[in-house]
């Protein structure tokens, strides 16, 4: 397909490497450009509406134009657009959210650690579990068992938990040099090597209802 010179589609194909996309097919077919949203609908750049039956990536729970969230973001941007939480620093939105989550938890929970994505959250869970077992003097207790077809993210550690072959860098990096992560730490290497193996027999496709 040829794109109108300098059109958004042409520039997308020229400059944008898309996640979870067949890059060669993308060069041929170009992007689907979404321009705006309203309730459960999104609209493409030709104004065509789509009922978004996936809420984006299983996520946009309140649809695509919740004004209260725009206001909450705007108010906070005006008040304190950024601050961190290292070294004893805190801010009210963080404190309130941590308290709220602990109150909502399905079982008694103690503390909340914040990240920016699902992958980072699962990476953090791995690290905290290692930290926890090191602290208890159980230095060998580091392996995670995950399930075939489970999805836990794409960062190196969380991808090791993810049970779909396409997410394992080793399955896509053909060169032996690049298929072996070089940044492995002792604990990580023992765990990673096992994790791939371990995820297998734990999971038989669940008997279909």
């Amino acid at each position, binding site marked *: 397909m040829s794109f109108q010179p300098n059109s958004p589609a042409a520039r997308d194909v020229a400059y944008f490497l898309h996640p979870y996309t067949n890059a060669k097919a993308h060069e041929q077919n170009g992007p689907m450009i979404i321009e705006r949203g309203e309730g459960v609908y999104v609209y493409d750049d030709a104004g065509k509406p789509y*009922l978004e*039956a*996936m*809420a984006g*990536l*299983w*996520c*946009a*729970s*309140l649809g695509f134009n*919740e004004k209260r*969230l*725009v206001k*909450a*973001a705007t108010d*906070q*941007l005006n008040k304190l657009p*950024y601050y*961190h*939480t*290292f070294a004893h620093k805190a*801010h009210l*939105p*963080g404190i*309130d*959210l941590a308290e*709220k989550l*602990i109150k*909502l*938890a*399905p*079982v008694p*929970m103690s503390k*909340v*650690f*914040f*990240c*920016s*994505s*699902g992958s980072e959250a*699962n990476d*953090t869970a791995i690290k*905290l*579990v290692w*930290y*926890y*077992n090191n602290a208890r003097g*159980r230095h060998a*207790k580091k392996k995670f*068992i*995950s399930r075939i*077809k*489970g*999805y836990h993210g794409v960062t190196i550690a969380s991808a090791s938990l993810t049970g*779909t072959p396409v997410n394992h860098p080793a399955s896509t990096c053909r060169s032996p040099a690049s298929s072996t992560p070089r940044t492995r730490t002792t604990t990580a290497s023992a765990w990673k090597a*096992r994790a791939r193996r*371990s995820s297998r*027999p*734990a999971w038989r496709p*669940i008997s279909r209802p």
Partner: protein
Amino acid sequence: MAADLEAMILEEGPETVAAFIAEPIQGAGGVIVPPKTYFAKIQAVLKKYDVLMVADEVICGFGRTGNFWGSETVGIKPDILTCAKALSASYLPISAVMISEDVYQPIAQASADLGVLGHGYTYSAHPVCAAVALETLKIYEERDLLGHVRAVSPHFEKRLHALIDHPLIGETRGVGLIGAVEIVADKATKKPFDPKAGAGALVYKAAAEHGLIVRSIGDNIAFTPPLIITESQIDELFDKMSLALDDGLAALKKAQAA
């Protein structure tokens, strides 16, 4: 299944196995709903060998499965819970890891011994993302979104499972407002299409032409609409899906004949 897990833990050595991680309902793997007693049996084994249970609530959290947490739907009692996505309705990126007191205490002590917990992101609890997440949780409560999900999900499930009557559909799965259908070449034997036929991708494309965005996972088509969806919008969703399946069937037949 629990016996398999126990065998694996023993094979690896219980002193080396730290945690088990699972989504309450597998999402991106194709919307796979566990049998009723699955997690009870799994967790009995984990307890026996001092293995932590990590619930990945990134998709299931905040009402998706008809309970506030997927863990409640499937009977998980997590030591650690991760969540994201609907935490902020996805308007801004933020995720959270919740840990139990038993997990926290040794970590806190180690951070004191070492002088610091050596982990954290520049954007951990970013104030604007946190403010949007807080407002999201407020909206869930004020509008009783969980009540809404419970009110409309029987209709969603009814329309979802009714797709089994379509000649292309071999199986339907789902609970609450998460569902999937599986496209098969032969309904009786559930024989799949040759992956080269790209049946799932064909239906995905046909759906888009009808103004419906779904997700194809191989030959599974998944649905997780915004939780605010109404009954009439659920009808629109599945009416469009039926048209897309008809188009897909015609295209697959044409390809087979050629």
